[in-house]
């Protein structure tokens, strides 16, 4: 049996993960036209990979293999930040210092429109986790109200 704060921790882990996703999206938008990086070449779009957290160390209470005990649930975390391996955009701009012999510049493989959609998606997911915390809080205050009056 999980206590009420562990349930809030699950939602908080979701909020943390979505905030990290927001950081990555902000980085992508900020570097949408960056042609120089430390590794050389233009900026590569980054993406977060989420992973579910299950506390395996806890005792398995369920009878069958596909049954979990609630104290195993640990929410979500960002497993890794991966680079988008799609090719760079080629833009004709001979005046650019990073242009090649034919006058083409390799621009980052960031689609700003796509990043804006991801941004809205992250925002809504964040709000969903906040709603979940508020519901849990309502549970707790309703339970505390039992002993009152």
């Amino acid at each position, binding site marked *: 049996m999980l206590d009420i704060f562990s349930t809030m921790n699950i939602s908080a882990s*979701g909020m943390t993960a979505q905030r990290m996703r927001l950081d990555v999206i902000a980085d992508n938008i900020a570097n949408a036209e960056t042609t120089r990086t430390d590794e050389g070449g233009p900026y590569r779009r980054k993406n977060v990979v989420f992973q579910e957290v299950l506390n395996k160390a806890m005792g398995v209470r369920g009878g069958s293999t596909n049954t979990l005990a609630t104290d195993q649930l640990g929410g979500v975390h960002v497993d890794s930040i991966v680079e988008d391996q799609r090719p760079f955009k080629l833009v004709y701009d001979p005046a650019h210092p990073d242009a090649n012999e034919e006058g083409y510049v390799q621009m980052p493989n960031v689609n700003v429109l796509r990043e804006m959609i991801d941004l809205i998606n992250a925002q809504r*997911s964040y709000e969903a986790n906040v709603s979940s915390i508020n519901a849990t809080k309502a549970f707790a205050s309703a*339970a505390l109200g039992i002993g009152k009056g």
Partner: protein
Amino acid sequence: MNGFFNSNFSTLPAALDAASTRNTIIAQNIANAETPGYKRKEVDFETYLQQAMGDGDGLELKKTNDKHFKNIPQQLEMLKPESEPARIPELPTTAITWTLTNKRLCWQPIPYAIRH
């Protein structure tokens, strides 16, 4: 212990625990809404209730004869027609049999008429 804090009273916290568990699972589902390969989890009270009613000892019907129904889900299998369906001869043109199709008991007309 009799009175207000009897056994019924102790089931109420259990119901609170069950609702809280469901809340936890939903929180986990929302947190993992964008996790690749994640399958939503759910608290399956109904399956366990069905199991308890199906083969549990506590919810059997009382019987005074071996042919009485013990409990409903398994005993319905007894109504399966074995070789030939039972006929009701009073009906002149269409006979109706008891058959068990898709685990649901229903009336089915036999495609032939019974001659007198």
